[in-house]
């Protein structure tokens, strides 16, 4: 006869667990299969990005930002360069082509990030095929990244005042074909999942959070929109010319894992529409602002003229010195509001750089989403929160 006991069992999950999406550790107190308490432990990937930035020039910080949310590097680059441009007061001098390319690439990045989210989320719940399909599509974006920036993940492509280089020939056509084909791929994923009874049972009503609780805990992005809060920084506090694009902000009321799944898929459809609009807007023109004191000269000047070389050398070695002050710039990253808070003391290094990482704040919602539910739901909730530990631990 089994011995009955009211004792809770404490188990450790992670940091080496395939469904924790990185080095996340959870201490779970279980009553049978019911989670009574979940305590996340983070910091295994802490690299001190904020401390390091205080010892680098403003341009040298850009490659550090790629390594925060490494599934959406261009979005991180954009948030940081926008904050520096705001600090310098050159936001309105960014050339049109640079702004359009930035929108184009951050929307492509949103697709890239959401594809990894869907792939791993579905894999965790048991749908292997979706994983393979999503990575097939993601591979195309990674190849585009490589053609454009030279790296498949750590792009380091945006610069203060514009872009590091113009788009290579031919990628516009590739991006257009990709964006035109994307809705059909999303239909394919939906065909595998949306009406699937196993998927529905694992997601509907799982990890439900109300709008009030979500705002209180600070959840932003798709997680908040799935709880019925109609708020998107691209539309409400537009940056980089987002006010010129027509797109819808998907919102759902249920606040559960299925609603978050639907919101993200609808966002992917909208992103492919924005990419097509951006491609239509893309006209030849300069890609760097005309602010020689802070903006790097075009590469062809650096390699062909001595003045360009001196100019480049001076900005790279000395950096530039924004006037003392502080700014906060938030952007709608794929995972929520990504914010950069910069304090300048008038020197060539940021006096303080604080990242507001969406994953870090969203992860705080995990305990209240899983407590009182089954252990298997923990896996679904980690997937639906779409966390990246590089960004959480910084």
């Amino acid at each position: 006869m089994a011995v009955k006991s009211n004792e809770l069992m404490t188990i450790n999950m992670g940091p080496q667990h395939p469904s924790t999406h990185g080095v996340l550790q959870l201490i779970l107190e279980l009553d049978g299969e019911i989670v009574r308490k979940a305590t996340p432990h983070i910091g295994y990937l802490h690299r001190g990005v904020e401390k390091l930035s205080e010892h680098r020039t403003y341009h040298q910080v850009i490659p550090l930002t790629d390594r925060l949310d490494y599934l959406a590097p261009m979005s991180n680059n954009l948030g940081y360069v926008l904050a520096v441009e705001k600090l310098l007061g050159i936001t309105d001098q960014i050339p049109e082509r640079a702004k359009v390319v930035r929108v184009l690439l951050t929307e492509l990045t949103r697709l890239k990030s959401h594809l990894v989210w869907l792939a791993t989320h579905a894999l965790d719940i048991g749908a292997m095929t979706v994983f393979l399909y999503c990575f097939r599509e993601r591979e195309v974006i990674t190849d585009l990244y490589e053609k454009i920036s030279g790296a498949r993940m750590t792009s380091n492509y945006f610069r203060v005042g514009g872009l590091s280089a113009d788009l290579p020939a031919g990628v516009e056509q590739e991006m257009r074909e990709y964006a035109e084909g994307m809705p059909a791929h999303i239909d394919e994923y939906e065909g595998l999942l949306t009406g699937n009874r196993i998927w529905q049972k694992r997601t509907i009503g799982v990890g439900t959070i109300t709008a009030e609780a979500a705002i209180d805990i600070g959840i932003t992005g798709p997680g908040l929109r799935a709880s019925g809060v109609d708020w998107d920084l691209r539309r409400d506090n537009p940056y980089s010319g987002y006010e010129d694009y027509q797109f819808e902000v998907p919102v759902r009321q249920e606040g559960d894992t299925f609603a978050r799944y639907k919101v993200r898929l609808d966002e992917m459809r909208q992103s492919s529409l924005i990419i097509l609009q951006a491609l239509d807007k893309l006209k030849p023109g300069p890609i760097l602002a005309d602010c020689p004191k802070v903006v790097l000269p075009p590469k062809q000047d650096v390699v062909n003229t001595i003045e360009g070389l001196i100019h480049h050398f001076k900005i790279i070695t000395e950096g530039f010195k924004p006037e003392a002050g502080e700014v906060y710039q938030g952007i709608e990253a794929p995972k929520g509001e990504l914010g950069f808070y910069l304090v300048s003391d008038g020197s060539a290094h940021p006096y303080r750089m604080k990242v507001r990482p969406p994953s870090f704040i969203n992860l705080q919602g995990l305990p209240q989403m899983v407590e009182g539910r089954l252990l298997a739901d923990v896996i679904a909730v980690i997937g639906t929160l779409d966390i990246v530990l590089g960004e959480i631990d910084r």
Partner: protein
Amino acid sequence: MSDLAIVEKLKAKFSSEILDVVEFRGETTVTVNKENIVDICTFMRDSGGYNLLCDLCSVDYLGQAPRYMVVYNLYNITTKERIRLKAPVEEQDAQIATVSTVWGTANWMERECWDLMGITFVGHPDPRRILMPADWVGHPLRKDYPVQGPDREPYQGRLS
């Protein structure tokens, strides 16, 4: 400036607490005394509609008095407006009341702030380190904490 309405309201209600109001690049920063920070934050949430605490962090102004500044970046989801509150904290008395009762999201942000900057949040429900190991000594984001880590030769290469 759209934020002025709440700044005026704040001035009327907490006239003796407001130390400074600064406009820079279209952003409003209000510096307040730390003593009534919980009341001020509750007022900002309930009367100002700043229902989302976007970010909470601190800055170390080593060599100045007061040494630390705790920074609250607030957002109003209804009117889509931002405002920043700052509260100075003395080096000898590096503590401030927690606002995790006002916004639940402040819980981890304050833990991070304690962990990396060493500012104590009085009344915090879970005052543990969050990013550094539990037995770590020191607070790495302080300006007098070497970038290469404690007890190590300073980096001789180029860290321009």
